[in-house]
């Protein structure tokens, strides 16, 4: 969930390892947190860097702590895509690796 930079023509030029490292502290705090879907969509025309993943659902989840998180839903069936669906934060690869092989990981949700 860091902010990454990309070049045109699908050639990724930079995913700062420092940003990823800084970001991991936040990611680990969210792991295993439970919540529910507030709203959702399915992305069919993705931004650059996500083309190989589409279509994929993105949800706005509200955690039991009240915090809201925007992230993808994984391991989903059609019946899971509804407001009120209970979800749990898990650790997943966010995008394909950059040219130096750095793989950005972060939070996605799975239905429970």
């Amino acid at each position, binding site marked *: *969930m*860091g*902010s*990454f930079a*990309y070049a*045109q023509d*699908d050639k990724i030029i930079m995913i700062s390892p420092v940003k990823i490292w800084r970001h991991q502290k936040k990611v680990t705090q969210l792991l295993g947190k439970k919540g529910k879907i*507030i*709203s*959702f*969509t*399915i*992305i*069919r*025309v*993705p*931004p*650059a*860097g*996500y*083309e190989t*993943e*589409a279509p*994929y659902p*993105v949800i*706005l989840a509200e955690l039991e702590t009240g*915090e*809201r*998180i*925007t*992230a*993808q839903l994984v391991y989903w069936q059609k019946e899971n895509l509804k*407001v009120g669906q209970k979800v749990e934060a898990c650790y997943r690869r*966010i*995008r394909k690796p950059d040219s130096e092989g750095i793989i*950005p990981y*972060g939070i996605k949700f799975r239905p429970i």
Partner: protein
Amino acid sequence: MKIPVLGIGVTKFGELWDYSPRVLVKQAVAEALNDARLKITDVDAIFVANMLSGILGNQENLGALFADELKSANKPAFKIEGACASGGLAIHNAVNSVLAGVYEKVLVLGIEKMTDHNPAEIAQALMSAGHDEERASGISFPGLYAILARAHMEKYGTKEEEMAAVAVKNHYHASLNPKAQFQTQLTIEQIMKSSCVADPLKLLDCSPVSDGAAAIIISNIKYQRSKTKRTVNIVASTVATDSLGLRGRKDLTTLKAAMVAGSKAYQQAKIKSSHIDVAEVHDCFTIAEILAMEDLGFFSKGKAARAITRGATKLGNGGLVVNPSGGLKACGHPVGATGIKQVCEIVTQLRNEAGERQVKGAKIGLAHNVGGSGAVAVVHILKN
């Protein structure tokens, strides 16, 4: 507040492969200067609205670039960026500079060149207006508004066909606007059958990728257009912000920044929403016009979709007309130019110069310009 608009200019909006940003800006500015009967050297400063030139075109420093290109003779120039609200924000800053007495005549121009790039590049570039967490989720701007649409559907029973009705109306208006990107009318069925971009939003719920430029010249109250020509004045100019991402919003069925900017603007102009005859609102997606209608107080919450569907805001209805230009949806959405084009359309309407799409007897108009998924909103009210 009473800020005269001396001149306006808008290029054709669309896929303008023959024209560079410099050419588009020169076209819009030449039209505005001609309308104002001024030369470029008569203006005291230039405000440039743009969002994507740095990301897509690797070109920044647009203030100096256009001051030079327009042969302004070393005039001060500034770039203002606030995503899709860049145009409205640039006008607001120009108005403030005039009110402060720093400048007397100010040129505000908006420009965007988008069609040189492929959809994935554009989707990624537009997401620079969002929250970093949203970018990492792989969501797109249609996706963010789809999340707002889903929440509105859940709470108020808003239907996909009712969202489509916004596009039908705006395409009808655009069919009467020779500068609009799309001059073809659409049916609800065509919109419902178009391919899905981000459920529940379909391709024809979305404003297009566009090129275009727009310009206005404003001044302090000492200056008017010639005695034979009607001068339209800006009587309110307000800005409000909200959380950058949707994660920070308590209510997903309203854009609070637009509500706050709207109510402040009505106060500043000393009018009520019911006094507005014509409005250009930020319909980047069909759901966005429904939100705008409710946020600006034209309809109570949950009532706008049905009202739009029955034609309550369509040209010729005798009351408020919304997006006579065709809106972002059908006139086109060259991001930086949009907020300025909206004000140009309102000025055209209040001068009674809109031809076939003229809102009869329009005296008070409103422009509503939103950046991000509601992170910033700008409202202008104009009177003739």
